């Protein structure tokens, strides 16, 4: 087992900002653990603009935003980075066990910052009845398949949920030559930024159905069509409004859930409803010296907010280390 002053789990925008901030606040022994081959986290697949307006006063794409932090971290040799490293166990005393090809490593830091981001809510969690054919993707998976793997998930798409990820993917699919036949939103207005409604939906004339829910997914081996129905103010189906839309792909964009199974494993007090740690102060948890930052602390709309939150966490970790010396 190796001992460290600070371990940061997650090398996306949150983890990088936290590590850099901790360093700038005096911590010189830092290990950053990242499961992918590259740093950057989800930003690597967010090829669109909309990042950095606040933090850098520039309109950047996701990879460009990440690149700024990657360059900074590279310039700080005191921050050790372990990629392809997957944390599988976290103990109450902050001992971290991670796997990487060829090794299982155990490290016990004095302070720990968790920056593990989110996963997407799935079709099953929102109980959409019907079959389970090929062609159903979370918006993030579709984004990854297109932007990283160069694969087109489908040609006729219906998007469930009008949050930003869904809207962004509407544009991406359209520019890839696919037809986005509808965006179905359960509430009466979009959850996404106006900017995205204009540039992703209105620009391409994609129909948006508000106050509608998907009542069934059809198709044996591949999605064939979906049924949607209007709902009233009490979320009850309005009879006679059911409509079928033919499609071969369904994108599910119905929210993000903080990925906090590790801190739950360690026994941190959790808010079961949001899957986030119960915190009396921002970034702190019920285990002293264990901090959570970025989207795994709270789901933010802008990455700039993630950076601000994570810089604070880095500062707090540095403070904690000074106090407990």
């Amino acid at each position: 087992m190796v001992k460290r002053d600070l371990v940061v789990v997650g090398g996306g925008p949150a983890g990088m900002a936290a590590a850099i901030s901790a360093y700038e606040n005096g911590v010189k022994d830092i290990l950053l653990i990242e499961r992918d081959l590259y740093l950057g986290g989800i930003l690597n697949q967010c090829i669109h603009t909309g990042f950095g307006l606040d933090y850098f006063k520039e309109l950047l794409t996701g990879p460009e935003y990440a690149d700024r932090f990657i360059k900074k971290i590279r310039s700080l040799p005191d921050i050790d980075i372990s990629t392809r490293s997957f944390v599988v166990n976290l103990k109450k005393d902050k001992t971290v066990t991670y796997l990487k090809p060829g090794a299982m490593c155990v490290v016990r830091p004095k302070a720990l910052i968790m920056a593990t981001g989110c996963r997407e809510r799935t079709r099953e969690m929102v109980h959409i009845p019907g079959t389970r054919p090929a062609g159903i993707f979370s918006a993030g998976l579709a984004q990854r398949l297109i932007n990283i793997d160069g694969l087109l998930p489908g040609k006729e798409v219906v998007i469930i949920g009008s949050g930003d990820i869904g809207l962004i993917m509407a544009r991406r699919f359209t520019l890839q030559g696919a037809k986005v036949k509808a965006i179905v939103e359960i509430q009466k207005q979009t959850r996404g930024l106006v900017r995205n409604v204009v540039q992703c939906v209105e620009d391409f004339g994609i129909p948006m159905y508000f106050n509608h829910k998907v009542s069934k997914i059809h198709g044996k081996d591949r999605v064939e069509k979906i049924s949607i129905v209007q709902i009233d103010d009490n979320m009850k189906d309005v009879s006679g409004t059911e409509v079928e839309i033919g499609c071969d792909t369904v994108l599910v964009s119905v929210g993000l859930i903080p990925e906090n199974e590790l801190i739950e494993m360690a026994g941190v007090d959790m808010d079961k409803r949001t899957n986030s740690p119960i915190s009396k102060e921002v970034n702190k948890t019920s285990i002293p010296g264990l901090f959570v930052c970025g989207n795994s602390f709270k789901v933010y709309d802008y990455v700039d907010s993630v950076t601000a939150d994570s810089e604070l966490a880095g500062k707090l970790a540095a403070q904690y280390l000074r106090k407990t010396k």
Partner: protein
Amino acid sequence: MSKYDIVIIGGGVVGTAIARELSRYKVKVVLLEKEAELAFGVSKSNSGIIHPGTQHSPGTLKGKLCVQGNALTRKLAKELFIDFKKVGELIVAFTGEERTRLEQLKKDGDACGVPSLKMVTKAWLKKNEPNLSGEALAALYAPTAGIISPYRWVYDFAENAISNGVEIRTETKAEKIVITNPGFEIITPKGNFSAKYVINAAGLYADEIARMVGINDFKICPRKGEEFLLDKKRENLTRHLLFPLPSKTSKGILVTRTSDGNPMIGPTAEDVQDREDLSTTEAGLKKVLEGAKKMVPSINENDIIAYFAGLRPASGDDFIIRHEDKVPGFINVAGIQSPGLTAAPAIALMVTGLLKQAGLNMKKKLFFHKYRKKEYHLFSMPLAKSKKLIKKDASYGDIVCRCEMVSAKEVREAIARGARTMDGVKFRTRAQAGRCHGSFCTSRLMKILAEETKLPSTGITKRGHGSEIVKEDRING
């Protein structure tokens, strides 16, 4: 045309259990499965319960073969290296009338030979099943109930059968059977197979196969069951498998768990017409939640992370396992709904007996590979053991599926053992079966499948032809 002693039609738990049993003998066997992989029919939707044998009338095949099968399963689980968890079952009574019915069930169970049955009191239940509803009055406790992974069970039978000489052909649908007397010729799109004996283990289509040789005295009536899985975080919801008193058509809404640790509630029991209707419904969810909450009030709809539906190949009240005297050499193994999974090894023995009776000369092989090569799953071993594995083979440390902790090595091994599709990988390794449902691992899994099967990305399917994951490769397409 290929010549065999026996053709088994159907690659579910029954067909593969029979194949494995027959592989002990010097007979040439081929198993034909119409889907892209084994277990893709009825078996994949099985709840995985190894029943003790209660709830069946003495004198039925179901009763007899279930009790036998339960004991055989434990034995075979060791030989085939599958995780069999002895969990025990409680049939719970909520009213005085139900308690009386329990006594009858115990009598029937004892008559069937179910071991160690005992009636337990409210106090016992409070101590040993704390989350069970306080309204429960008493229960019948059957300690020999267990859980197993139903599709892994199929793959294990198949793997061992293959290592002992059985041939297995997937994507090979029996379209027509010609009675050549003696023997049969089975016509498939992949060629013709001739055999002296045919074993019809075709699940939902057993009646169609039987009709091909002129037997039409039974009909398969698909009965849909919807099941709902809860997050693994609620693993300790129950200690035993919880059953209500059975109704005429089904065992009721159960609160059980899968052998991988997810609590499971269901199934419903609804007769359907379409043999391919695997859709889940809002009504099904409501019914299951109602039944499950009655048993365990703390069950929360928000814990549901997955759901699926299966179709029981129901036909009458009992199994139909018989040699057809009118069509010598043809053995029907039909209507195998619950407790089919449990009974499978016993069914295999019974079918072997029927074959002998029908005149097949069955000599035991000199060398029979009883054991299956062990395989490792990181999610089911302590960390210290994982460490040793990773040192031995570095790719055990290359994690592909984060929710279920599945390594690249395990995925490659699954493919080496027969997985060809994303579902095939899922059933064997659990990658994509966790809470994120493949959002994280699908991309990597597709890459590994493409590498190992030499298919292009656009050729990777969910469960066979027609279910390709992506439509186009924008770089190489």
